[in-house]
């Protein structure tokens, strides 16, 4: 007779899945954070391409955001996870036939989620830079400032303030999206909970635990984001 008591199942004692779930939650957080950071890089780069880049870079950036934002996240994840890994394998086969590669599932998951997150962050940064009045850069130039300091001390801080609330939203979306990588077999929180659910035959108990963890992460994130926004707004008022 397997245990059915939720506290025993989710606990840290004998037959408890507590430690396994905790490790899964750590994987979830790592994947979400890494993907968000990758998305930040993609977002900044492509926002630059959309605003200042040559025509081909602008076209590529527009195409990327339109396609990725129009597709289901899970489809992009499967495409990059399965398609990307088989493309890398083919490439390695071409360079040195007979060689085999092991592609890190964690890295593939991070890239897939990062590509999705980056598509949203691109438009956040583009809108933020577009939201700064033209006069700001012109005034700085008339004071004799150069391009680089204008960007660093005039444009970037204002853009950051405008981008912060939507960036917080994208983080909450990326955090929840991270649950999707369990579909390709990554041992994140939902992945290990699935094992626990089928082993114990108590799926409600395990998925409820997952939901609670995500809810706590979302609420804590939301609280941190609003504190950050308040801080930035305050520093703005001092000027």
């Amino acid at each position, binding site marked *: 007779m397997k245990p059915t008591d939720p506290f025993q199942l989710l606990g840290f004692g004998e037959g408890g899945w507590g430690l396994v779930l905790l490790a899964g939650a750590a994987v979830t957080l790592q994947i979400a954070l890494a993907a968000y950071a990758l998305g930040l890089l993609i977002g900044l780069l492509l926002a630059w391409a959309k605003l200042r880049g040559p025509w081909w870079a602008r076209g590529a950036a527009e195409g990327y955001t339109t396609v990725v934002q129009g597709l289901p996240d899970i*489809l992009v994840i499967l495409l990059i996870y399965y*398609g990307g890994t088989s493309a890398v394998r083919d490439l390695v086969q071409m360079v040195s036939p007979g060689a085999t590669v092991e592609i890190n599932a964690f890295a593939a998951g991070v890239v897939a989620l990062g590509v999705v997150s980056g598509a949203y962050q691109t438009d956040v940064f583009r809108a933020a830079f577009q939201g700064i009045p033209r006069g700001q850069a012109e005034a700085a130039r008339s004071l004799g400032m150069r391009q680089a300091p204008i960007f660093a001390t005039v444009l970037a801080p204002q853009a950051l303030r405008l981008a912060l609330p939507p960036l917080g939203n994208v983080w909450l979306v990326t955090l*929840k999206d991270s649950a999707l990588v369990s579909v390709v077999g990554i041992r994140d929180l939902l992945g290990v909970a699935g094992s626990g659910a089928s082993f114990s035959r108590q799926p409600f108990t395990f998925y409820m635990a997952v939901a609670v963890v995500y809810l706590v992460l979302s609420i804590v994130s939301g609280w941190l984001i609003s504190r950050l926004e308040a801080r930035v707004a305050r520093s703005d008022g001092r000027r």
Partner: protein
Amino acid sequence: MDWERLITNLLSGFPITVLLVAASGIVGNAAAVLVALARTSEKVWLRWPALAFTTVIRGTPLIVQIFLIYYGLGQFREVRQSFLWPILKDPLWCAFLALSISTAAYSGEVLRGAIANVPRGLVEAGKSVGLGKWQIRLTIVLPLAFRQSLPVLANETVLLLKASAIVFTITVRDIMGEANVFRAQTFRVYEPLLSAAVLYLALTFTIRRGFALAERRMNRWRERVG
């Protein structure tokens, strides 16, 4: 590569996706009106449960909610013996249920914001000509809030379409489900997934066009002024 089989399979998943998005879009948005009214109500016993509902649904991944409904509820004997079991053991019904609940929460928050943005003067004008509470709500506040939130609801509907793709994880054979089964059976990745991508992009485009048309229609009154 058997293109004929791929296309037939994907096209048999197409109506499932469309049906799922349309049905849960309609039911979910209707429920969203109730959620929004409860969220803006003066009564605490309506406002608090509505806030808890939207916080919980929007704070957890949809895939977890779907697993809870489809795999989770069967854990309880009471559920398995209830009259609802034929519905709750059917993946398509569970998918519809989960997507409707999710839409009710997300659109409910959109409508709440729009209701809060309806100018106070309009409500007071309604009161001053002797309209009742519900008359004001149904003839002034809700139509204005709805029209104002139409562009955001277009976005929410595209998000619903995109979210609907994860129902393949509970064995529903929608576009994504057909593409994934084909991928697993033939070991081909690009053909099924990219073909599915084309279908989803076409649907995204259709939804955006549809809402743009509706928006133009609802704003026609503006063109005649001036």
